[in-house]
């Protein structure tokens, strides 16, 4: 399946994945971030309950230096 993540298309095996699995695949486990799927925020408590499907648009954001 193909997922749009932060503006890039990434290809993964299978037909769906959870945010929790996706984070591990992206080497982001242990980091602090928030995730949006198709414009809707996925609450942290739902990271292993919701599925990300082929064609979904995912944004993964974090805090960076800024004024």
């Amino acid at each position, binding site marked *: 399946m193909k997922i749009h*993540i*932060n*503006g*890039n298309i*990434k290809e993964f095996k299978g037909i769906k994945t959870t945010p929790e699995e996706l984070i591990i695949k*992206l*080497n*982001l*486990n*242990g*980091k*602090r*971030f*928030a995730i*949006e799927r198709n*414009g809707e*925020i996925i*609450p*942290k408590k739902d990271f292993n309950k919701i599925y990300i499907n082929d064609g979904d648009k995912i*944004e*993964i*954001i*974090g*805090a*960076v*230096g*800024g*004024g």
Partner: protein
Amino acid sequence: MVDKISNTSDDLTIAGLSFKSRLLIGTGKYNSFKETRSAIDASQSEIVTVAIRRVNLGQSPDEASLLDFIPPEQFTYLPNTAGCYSSDEAIRTLRLARELLDGHNLVKLEVLGDPDTLYPNVVETIKAAKILIKDGFDVMVYTSDDPIIAKQLEEIGCCAIMPLASLIGSGMGILNPWNLEIIIDKANVPVIVDAGVGTASDATIAMELGCDGILMNTAIALAHNPILMASAMRKAIESGREAFLAGRMDKKPYRASPSSPVKGLIK
């Protein structure tokens, strides 16, 4: 800061939170996270602004992040909407920030109107502020130095009004003290100068006008020695605040007044 004469505290209160420091600093443009942290320590700031951006997907698992150096448990984070040119973008960014920071509601709203001047789009700012406040956010709002807009933002429910002193990152100082004074005079919520301060004397001037605090980034980060400038800014703000509280002497244009007795001169 403690008033040294009466020994009463002079805390800055924003949205029910109390702060000893009246200096709020941005975390952008530093050479390293270590330098950012050292500057914050030297400034003794308690509120730090951060930007919200897409994470770098190619990073290694042990790559350091800003949060490792500036733990959100030790500082009050102020996520901003820098780079947003519409109310929709700003609202989306701050909702993500709230999720990122586990329900943290205190935010800095800025909606820009023009990439060359980074001048705020006050129409979009008002629109975003209304929605965010309804959604439970405590909104500190970057705005122009227009006193009518400032008052409207207060009436909507913004918890701090943050007019520019001059353009973001310009270091041009306090260009319109008259407008700032009108805003301060009319406001019932903290007025924090956001943007334009270039050096310590600018910060002192703003505080002497009666500003409740100053938010700055570039003046510290792009100083030749950012850590020393952070310390200078802390002193400048404390100094300006004390001078404001003390109340300056009346100006006597074109008339000197001797400080030494005029009686008993040796003749």
